[in-house]
């Protein structure tokens, strides 16, 4: 190793010891530099953007280290998980780093979502609901996050109970007097609606928020679903731990067909 490199390494470690607080070790600083601190940073590392914090840090502290897109992407996987399918991982990395048609991520991509687990107070009780959000472009180059669907068991209508309960076919003759009983029949409510009626949880959610019955308390957890890469779905979660491999990391990677992607949206994200 060159003497110069040794000196730089020594100077680096001495200087950080001198200037750092006791509590904040070199180790902490290094972990922080390597941690994927925001989704923005995830995207910039995935895309191998230049002039990033990590690149600067490595250039300063490990001048001999080489950084390429493949190693950056590998560093975006949760390495605490030992169940990764190596074949799939290789296929994925090969796909996104393919020389002739590489795949990149953008904040403004259409097919990525935030699944936000939230705590609410509903009629005075703690309840959990999941909101699915996406980035919606607006005029003049602006954008905003919007709620595209909701999952909340407590807002679901009860399933069919007693199929014999209904508005009988002659109800019209009594000017639908039976509506009184029908709409009081909480348990069998769906019996009185058309067969293909869909329990639209987002509408129910808006309604409950609007009338003040549902109050937001806090966000418990977030999972990002990236569906914008052809043939793949990845989820990104936050791993808050004292390690270089921490922050927003890929928690799952699935190879899918277009049909499977559509099904995933429907079943996991509640998006038709």
């Amino acid at each position, binding site marked *: 190793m060159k003497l110069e*490199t040794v000196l730089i390494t020594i100077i680096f470690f001495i200087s950080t010891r001198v200037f750092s607080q006791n509590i904040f070790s070199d180790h902490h600083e290094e972990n922080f530099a390597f941690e994927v601190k*925001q989704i923005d940073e995830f995207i*910039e590392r995935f895309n191998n953007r230049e002039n990033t914090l990590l690149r600067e840090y490595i250039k300063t502290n490990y001048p001999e280290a080489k950084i390429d897109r*493949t190693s*950056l992407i590998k560093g975006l996987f949760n390495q605490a998980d*030992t169940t990764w399918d190596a074949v799939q991982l*290789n296929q994925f990395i090969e796909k996104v780093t393919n020389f002739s048609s590489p795949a990149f991520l953008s904040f*403004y991509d259409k097919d990525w979502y935030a699944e936000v687990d939230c705590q609410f107070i509903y009629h005075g009780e703690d309840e959990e609901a999941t909101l699915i959000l996406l980035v919606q*472009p607006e005029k003049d180059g602006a954008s905003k996050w919007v709620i595209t669907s909701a999952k909340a068991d407590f807002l679901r209508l009860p399933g069919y109970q007693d199929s014999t309960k209904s508005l009988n076919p002659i109800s019209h003759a009594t000017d639908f007097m039976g509506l009184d009983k029908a709409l009081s029949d909480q348990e069998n409510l769906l019996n009185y609606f058309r067969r293909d009626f869909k329990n639209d949880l987002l509408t129910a959610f808006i309604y409950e928020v609007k009338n003040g019955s549902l109050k937001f308390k806090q966000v418990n957890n977030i999972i990002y679903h990236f569906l914008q890469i052809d043939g793949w779905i990845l989820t990104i979660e936050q791993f808050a731990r004292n390690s270089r491999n921490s922050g927003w990391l890929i928690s799952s990677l699935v190879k899918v067909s277009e049909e499977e992607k559509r099904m995933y949206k429907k079943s996991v994200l509640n998006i038709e």
Partner: protein
Amino acid sequence: MKRQIFCLSAILVCASALAQDVLYLKDGNKISCDVAKIAGKKLEYKMTGSGEQTTADLSQLLMTFFKNGDYLVFSEMSDDGLNNVTYKAKEASGTGVTQDIIISKDEKVFVGKVNAVETGQIKYTPKGSILAMSKSTADVAVIIFTSGKHQLFTSPAEAAPVLSAVKSRVNSYIAPIEGKSETEVSEVTPKKEQTTAKKENEPVKEKDVAKEKKEIKPEKKEEVVKESVKEEKTKKEKEAEEKAKTEKPKEELAEEVQVKKETIEEVIPAKEEIKKEEPKAETKETVIQTEPEEKKPTVIKEEEKEFAGLDIDFEMFKRKSLQKVEDLGAYISIIADKNTEWQESNKAIDLACTLFVNEEANVEVSSKGSPEKTKYKIRPYLNRIKLLKYDRVEVSWTNISYVSDLRKGVDGNYYGVITLQQVFTGFIEGKVAYTDVTKKNIEVVLKGYEKLVEGKTIGLWDVFLSDIGVVVTS
């Protein structure tokens, strides 16, 4: 107090030795003199004491400080720039420095009144504030006093690039003295940013203390464009080379990216592995793929300098944002200090609130060892800090921070998030009673506004802090 008086006297004695024009030479020498004239890349001066007339070549000089506190950094100027510097001394009295100016090594400018320079500490009262603050001399490059004198806290060679970088901001506090001198720097072509001063961006709120810390203007656009073109060209050349080098049979490529379940590599090898590595001839990474162009919505990145009539420089945004965060930490320390008068604490709370976009901003707090997070509006949060049981609190931020891109919201403002680590230390009877490191995500709002300057409406902007989230590490 006696100590402070002594220190102040020490500064004055020390600084009075510098009550001349001062030349700093590249060979490390310093000359006290009277600069008579600068023209044609030559500087004529009269030696203090002997009165001997001498001429120096500008290429031999690092910089010169004039009696009025103004300065010129030659070492950072291009050859053309040196050729264009002209100066002629005239008789006058007084100085042009309107505030004591503290210039830090990381190119920040603090103005106010320097109260004392004690061992390792500079105590000063920021302009517009009644609260005294302090800075470590280790962080400071230079102080320029209202007397026109200056004091270096680092080597002239280290101070020169810093002084050059902050020149346009410092100019705001050095009023031209009629009859004093004629210094033409407007024609100077700087290497860096020294003379790019067009119009300073000013904060919106009058009482915002951060208003005093004006920011550097972005580099000249043409230079940026040239750089990008050059970079692009190099990139393409590299790509072609890389393609030729790296085009391998598919099987070989697949082998290269082989990743084993148990050993997914990190971005770089562990320190020990790096130490073992032999130096390679090719140390720089050849980037074969770069980020695609951003789509329609507007995001301010380092490369993008102007948008919607606002001259937004990402670096400037970063500096302004981090400065506000630093100010917040300083206010928190004042508020939590049991020695701070109640009234001063309240004043500090008011000032801290002005750093925020509005008082609806929320601050999340966590406690060591607990996953629970509690949310407070900014003012109640600061009021709670006032009630902390510690005698003294230190809030500092670690050196590394990540600042996201800026994104335009539907309200026309731009939004970004800074992630950094806060070190909180509470002292009781001089001993550390509590300390923790928390990661904070601080939302920053960039607001544009218009100002009428000399009959013209110009678009300016400032940044404000907003919600502060905390990340609890397991």
